[in-house]
């Protein structure tokens, strides 16, 4: 197991870096997009609700691999060139954002209706009330489930391996088939994923204790 590490240090590190990069990009964008659709799902406008609902149901109910293959194979043929890394990261972002939207929506709706009524009767507009009263409370409520989504996102980033995205799993696959030491290679790859997910897991737990 140690020899797999020492012999292929740079390959594994490249993979680790790409996994980290893809995860961070997807995390930031899926959080932004997901929150936007969550707010859209709770606003009074019916059109906005329908749009948000459609988006969420589409990307939540199609397998991540299918979304990714779509961006890897179909988009380059008809729209614009797209590398495996980009296709994987976009797929990951859209897929995760739909789950984050549902999570955040639950948080917004869990905030007592009196909070909104109170804010409005104190002269705040709907958006001011959302921004300063509702959302801060909502996010505090959804930190534990959001942590789950982030961990899932990192693990799901292994989808890049199928579209030559040069991530950790891709490098692991390449190493395993070049050295035939499948067992130890995948073991090392597993440990590398733990290095990413365990600290995140602990940090989310810490955040939960501090805020809730």
């Amino acid at each position: 197991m140690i020899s797999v590490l020492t012999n292929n240090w740079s390959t594994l590190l490249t993979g680790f870096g790409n996994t980290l990069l893809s995860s961070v990009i997807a995390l930031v964008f899926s959080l932004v997009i997901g929150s936007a659709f969550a707010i859209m799902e709770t606003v009074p406008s019916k059109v906005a609700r329908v749009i948000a609902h459609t988006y969420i149901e589409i990307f939540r109910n199609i397998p991540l691999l299918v979304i990714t293959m779509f961006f890897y194979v179909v988009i380059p043929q008809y729209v614009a060139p797209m590398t495996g890394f980009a296709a994987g990261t976009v797929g990951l972002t859209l897929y995760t954002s739909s789950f984050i939207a549902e999570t955040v929506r639950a948080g917004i709706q869990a905030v007592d209706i009196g909070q909104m009524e109170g804010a409005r009767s104190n002269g705040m507009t709907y958006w001011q009330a959302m921004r300063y009263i509702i959302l801060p409370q909502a996010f505090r409520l959804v930190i534990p489930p959001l942590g789950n989504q982030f961990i899932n996102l990192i693990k799901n980033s292994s989808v890049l391996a199928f579209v030559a995205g040069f991530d950790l799993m891709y490098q692991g696959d390449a190493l395993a088939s070049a050295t035939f030491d499948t067992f130890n290679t995948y073991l090392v790859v597993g440990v590398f994923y733990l290095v990413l997910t365990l600290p995140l897991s602990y940090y989310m737990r810490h955040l939960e204790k501090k805020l809730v």
Partner: protein
Amino acid sequence: MSKWFKKVLIAVVPLFLLTVLAACGQKQTDNVYQRTKSAKKIVWGVKADTRLFGLMNVKNGDIEGFDVDLAKAITKQMYGKDAQAEFIQTTAKTKVPLLKNGNIDAVAAAMTITDKRKKIIDYTQPYFGAGQSLLVKKGSPIKAVRDLNKAGTKVMAVKGTTAVDNIHKFAPKAKVLELDDYAQSFTALKSGQGVAMTTDNGILYGIAKENPDYEVVGGTFTNEPYGLAVDKGQTEMRAHIDKALDQLQANGTYSRLVEKWFGGIPGFDVKEVEQP
């Protein structure tokens, strides 16, 4: 328990479990020849995504191809007319692990004999003489492997094949995109992820035959003798497969199968194939 102790424990226990798992990596060996002889059945690992060698027929679910027919003939030659050949789908990435863990008894999957692979599995005599070539869209500026040797050139290959190492050697500046199987590789070529797809000529001709917009260019730039493979140390099994191959070559079955699958492929030299 103190808080710290708990934290340490949570961190250490998974690592400990991993080490235990690692220790379970060894397995016992059995005699594949004796087992398959008494069962009158050989489980072969074959390709299912490769036209001419092993391709799943979507209508009836059977895998068809030269490797499949040869494996059937060898099985019957070894254990008699009523012997059974069972086929399990493998990819370049999975065939060695499946052979090692005993899920398949032997491999007949367009597999090149290499020194690196010989260290962990045993090969029979070569049964097919292939060579690596390139598949490109018709009218592509790529005419030979040297045209690939430019920074920024992307070439599709399949994970775990000799083609990956060969491109690193013949066109070191090209970037190799390793995909899971031939179908995916070709899909990536079609969607423009790279300028060429590379693997052995026989496989590429199979794809070009079904996709007239694509052609095989540049001839072959390596020698890829295919061998049937068994797990390391299964010398009895290997000797018997070798013997069956000799008999099939002597009685003309082998040539008939080569002619059946490769006779009608333009640009493909059947003579070259039969003398690996």
